[in-house]
């Protein structure tokens, strides 16, 4: 665990009387697919929202790629190199698939009002690069042929893929996926799994929240388990499967 990409510790988050997260820590090595599981209401999504700047934590230290980052604003987190998707898909519905991914390039590009109106050489070059890269990413996730289709008319599975392509467009070091397989059938899950492995091979570390334990066990390099906002286990998938606390809290209850 020398090559840490994400190192987060002692995260506390309280909503009024509810302690949503208690001293949660997570360490993700570069190139891993890291799983975060737990029963409903365990605080997985809250933790996600904290590390991506959507919620402000009460305490916590955050380090990405050896440098501390402050999760004070989502756009700053995206700039630092963490991109995310949402549990209930959040696309820009009226934009085309291509435009959705082009928005993802926003944070890595810089043309302003002047460039937009005058369209000088640098602005045109940047725009062309944005477009080319967006198309490339759509092809990468396998929906290149739907580039000109309005996002909200895409099929459910393709919307999930589009969201991943949009997140990849921000050039993340860490891709954080909140239940990407939710609502998918077996075939779609298999395809998603292939896509995630492909992303991993492209050198991007993945943090994954998922309910589908079977999918997680086969896919993840390491797994953390949350229950009632506390970390109850951390380790290799095989260890997690045998862990008594986890079986009681989650696997046991589910079967």
């Amino acid at each position, binding site marked *: 665990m020398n090559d840490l990409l994400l190192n987060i510790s002692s995260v506390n988050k309280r909503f009024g009387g509810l302690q949503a997260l208690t001293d949660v820590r997570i360490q993700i090595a570069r190139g891993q697919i890291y799983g975060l599981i737990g029963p409903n209401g365990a605080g997985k999504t809250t933790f996600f929202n904290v590390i*991506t*700047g*959507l919620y402000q934590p009460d305490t916590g230290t955050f380090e990405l790629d050896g440098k501390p980052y402050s999760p004070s*604003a*989502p*756009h700053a987190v*995206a*700039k630092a190199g963490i*991109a*995310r998707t*949402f549990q209930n898909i*959040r*696309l*820009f*519905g*009226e*934009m*085309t698939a291509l*435009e959705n991914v*082009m*928005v*993802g*390039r*926003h*944070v*890595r*590009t810089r*043309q*302003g*009002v002047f*460039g*937009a*109106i005058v*369209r000088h050489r640098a*602005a045109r070059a*940047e*725009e062309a690069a*944005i477009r080319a890269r967006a198309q490339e990413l759509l092809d990468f996730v396998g929906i290149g*042929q*739907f580039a*000109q*289709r*309005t996002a909200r*008319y895409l099929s459910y599975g393709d919307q999930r893929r589009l969201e991943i392509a*949009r*997140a990849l*467009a*921000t050039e993340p070091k860490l891709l954080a996926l909140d239940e990407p397989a939710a609502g998918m059938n077996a075939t779609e899950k298999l395809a998603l799994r292939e896509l995630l492995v492909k992303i991993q091979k492209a050198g991007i570390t993945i943090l994954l929240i998922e309910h589908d334990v079977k999918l997680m066990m086969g896919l993840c390099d390491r797994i953390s388990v949350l229950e009632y906002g506390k970390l109850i286990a951390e380790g290799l998938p095989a260890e997690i499967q045998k862990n008594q606390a986890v079986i009681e809290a989650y696997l046991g209850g589910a079967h």
Partner: protein
Amino acid sequence: MALLTFDTAHKPRQSYASMAILLAVMLVFPFVASQFGNSWVRIIDMALLYIMLALGLNIVVGFAGLLDLGYIAFFAVGAYLTGLLASPQFAALLESVVNYSPAMGDALVALFGESIRTEGIHLSVWFIVPLAGLVAALFGALLGAPTLKLRGDYLAIVTLGFGEIIRIFMNNLNDPINFTNGPQGINLIDPIRIFGVSLAGEAGSKATVFIGGFGMPSVNAYYFLFLLLCIVTIFMTSRLQHSRLGRAWVAIREDEIAAKAMGINTRNVKLLAFSMGASFGGVAGAMFAAFQGFVSPESFSLTESIAVLAMVVLGGIGHIPGVVMGGVLLAALPEVLRHVVEPVQQSLFGKVLIEAEVLRQLLYGLAMVLIMLNRPAGLWPSPIKEDRPVAATDKEEKEESAVV
């Protein structure tokens, strides 16, 4: 809409042809219309100003999805700025400053010269227009800053309040220092003068403007200026729309949280939308003041804000050709009705049954209700909203190109 298309991305040849035809019609229009009286050209002059306003508001409401009910405030800022800096009003301002604090008055005289005591300031249009744009943009940011976290209804209420505050300021800012001359408004605003040619016509020319020996009525001269400004506005807003910033605006409209998560600094990008939108309003205001020669708070009521918003929504929110069409219809329709309803009644019934003013409002309202019922997305909405699978679109395009 089948005849004219402005979809340059998909049908470039057709849309450039449409633009050329439209431009030709627009260039000939005032010479034909002025045969029937200058008032018709004047109506279109005002319509062009409204189009500029609607296009500016379209940035805020259409692109960024921020409902703004106080947009006319920026029009007012531009108009009053012109009133202050291109009329004798500054002399009145100075007088009140001298009464209030002689030292400050002396400083102003030292800064601008002795002549402002009697004549006020008369800046050239080349200063006024950029200044109006800038100051309005500043006011746009000023409105935007406190409303960053608001959306929908709440934003609408705050912007409505802002619009009213500006109007009330204009109404009352004549004491202790006389900035706006209160409810009487500012009079004798300089007409626009470009390269030494006054667009109001020189004294004794019966409002005829001569350009290189070629004379035309003053309203026609203003028509061409406003047409040019409208074209510039259309050009700028459509370029903004199809840029990195335009996409960021639409992203915020579609889903603000997702936009943030994708690295868009929503605070800056929203403020920019408010400022850019406001600057077009400011320039239109400056033109309005110079065109009318007179501004008063009455011209900037809530009704005006709503009228401009109606142009945007009714024409096709977020779609520039639609917004332009909405502007033409809603600005010209009431005036056309004003001229038409009485003669029509006279010829139908032999007498005027309903007063023109009443009937005009009635028909105007009815038209708006009918349009919104039958075309909820506006008369001419963006084509992207149609759901057409890629294969079908390709096929259609092939067929079309075969026909062409």
